[in-house]
């Protein structure tokens, strides 16, 4: 039982005074938790007096595995953290690794990764908002969102062959360069998506039922958001103007014109609106990046000895052959500084960072992931106290908890 046992006489007396409360187990298998997590709710009638989250059902030791897989292999595990936007995780992981190595990416790779990170953000926000709609009774809205996610999956599939678990990035570059077909598909998406966004806005933004269910529910003040380490759209919906894309520009974000979407309100409806607005800004970034995509190599040069050289290089140049050999042989690989660093990106859900300790080999000594879902789920009891049972799904949906990232 996750409920803390009463320790003192006072606590026992308190427990007795609260004896009339109902205890309700919410999850671990429940359609509205979307994944595997459990809440123990204390109910006074229909009002939630307290909520005790119980997590760990999906814990699979990702950080331990990170100490046994090399920097390129581990990218497959990051796919499985926030599986709603795996490309963002890939980019976060290899962004941190490249920071540790001190690698400077090629301009084309920076632009390509920026485009993909933003497409991943759109895909994540579509799911989150779609699920909030679904949980509060707006099924049509959910279908609109999921139709567009399918289009995005199609782009990802054309890009790297996988719909769901992309594992697209490599240390110092990406798996394959984007083909003209991918560029064409992204262009088509940029053109067609605003129409769907408008439709989605019209479906829910002034929908009486939806607004009643989300407005004023689960309010998070700015001070609480900072104190409880909230980041990403959840913090921005509470008035924290922090966005790593602007504050600590990484990849190619400096080159683009976009806005940080904030709201001073901090309720579920504000979080929904911030996500909707962010999708439009993401689309702006994608539109600018795809038209200005630099040419040239997508991976870092052979001298860096981190990415596998192209087959043409391997067969026709001595540097290519040596570099290929060094990377492929089991006892070689690239060298990493004997030091520690933290690299983070603005993932769809918040700040996703990796704290890496390198020990000279190509396997991390420590690969700590700072998972936004984990930090945000700790907010939940604070947000739900005093609201009704039916608000649980609205608040849970607006926090966008992905249990695989929550438990890792």
């Amino acid at each position, binding site marked *: 039982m*996750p409920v*803390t046992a009463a320790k003192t006489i006072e606590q026992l007396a308190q427990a007795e005074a609260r004896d009339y409360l109902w205890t309700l187990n919410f999850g671990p298998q429940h359609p509205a938790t979307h994944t595997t997590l459990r809440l123990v709710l204390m109910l006074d009638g229909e009002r939630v007096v307290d909520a005790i989250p119980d*997590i*760990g059902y999906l*814990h699979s*030791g990702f*950080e*331990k*595995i990170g*100490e*046994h897989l090399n920097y390129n292999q581990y990218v497959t595990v990051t796919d499985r953290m926030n599986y709603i936007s795996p490309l963002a995780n890939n980019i976060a992981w290899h962004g941190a690794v490249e*920071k*540790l190595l*001190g690698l400077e990416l090629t301009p084309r790779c920076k632009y390509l990764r920026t485009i993909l990170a933003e497409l991943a953000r759109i895909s994540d926000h579509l799911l989150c908002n779609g699920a909030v709609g679904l949980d509060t009774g707006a099924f049509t809205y959910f279908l609109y969102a999921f139709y567009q996610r399918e289009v995005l999956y199609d782009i990802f599939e054309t890009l790297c062959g996988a719909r769901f678990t992309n594992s697209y990035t490599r240390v110092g570059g990406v798996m394959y360069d984007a083909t003209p077909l991918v560029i064409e598909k992204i262009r088509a998406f940029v053109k067609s998506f605003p129409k769907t966004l408008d439709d989605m806005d019209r479906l829910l933004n002034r929908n009486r039922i939806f607004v009643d269910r989300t407005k004023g529910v689960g309010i998070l003040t700015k001070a*609480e958001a*900072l*104190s*409880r*380490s*909230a*980041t990403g759209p959840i913090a921005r919906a509470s008035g*924290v*103007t*922090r966005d790593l894309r602007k*504050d*600590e520009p990484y990849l190619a974000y400096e080159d683009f014109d976009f806005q940080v979407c904030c709201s001073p309100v901090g309720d579920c409806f504000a979080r929904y609106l911030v996500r909707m607005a962010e999708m439009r800004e993401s689309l702006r970034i994608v539109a600018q990046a795809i038209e200005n995509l630099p040419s040239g190599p997508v991976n870092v040069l052979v001298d860096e000895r981190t990415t596998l050289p192209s087959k043409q290089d391997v067969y026709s140049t001595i540097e290519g052959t040596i570099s290929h050999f060094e990377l492929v042989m089991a006892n070689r690989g690239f060298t990493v*500084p*004997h*030091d*520690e*660093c*933290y690299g*983070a990106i603005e993932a769809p859900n918040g*700040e996703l*960072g990796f*704290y890496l*300790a390198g*020990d*000279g080999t190509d396997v991390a*000594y*420590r690969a*700590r992931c*700072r998972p936004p879902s*984990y*930090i945000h*789920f*700790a907010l939940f009891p604070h947000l739900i106290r005093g609201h009704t049972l039916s608000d649980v799904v609205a608040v849970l949906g607006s926090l966008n908890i992905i249990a695989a990232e929550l*438990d*890792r």
Partner: protein
Amino acid sequence: MIQPPTQTAVAAAFPALVWSEFRGGTRAVVPRDELYKTLEFLRDRHHFDLLVDITCVDYLNYRGATDRFGLVYLLAATETNERLTVRTFVNEPDLVVPSAVPLWKGADWMEREVWDMFGIQFEGHPDLRRILMPEEFTAFPLRKDYPLQGRGERHNFPVLTREEG
């Protein structure tokens, strides 16, 4: 990245801090006894209002390491966009550090995870229980002396039948 005036001010207030730079990030190693005071000073005087993460590294087989565990506090200032990594070292058998929950409420689950995975105790934490591993789990799985395959815990789970449940 920390701005030089902030660093000078913090270094003047806490001379025991050891500073270092790596890849544009500033780090300060602080003795454990001054950890809480340093964090409080950084939050109240220098606007480090966001606790990004608390984590731990087990330096059991790390070349050149003299201490067993290194605790890492990643701080950020949302107004000035500064970042600072505060580290402190603890050794067995005295694995106790003051809890940061009175300073940042977000430290609650982060510290519970560090306790769960490394067995570091946070003095003053309101509810220090395991969070990801089951309650009855006895080991600390992210320590370097814990094998990747586990010690057979998975095979010895008690089986509960429907009648007993």
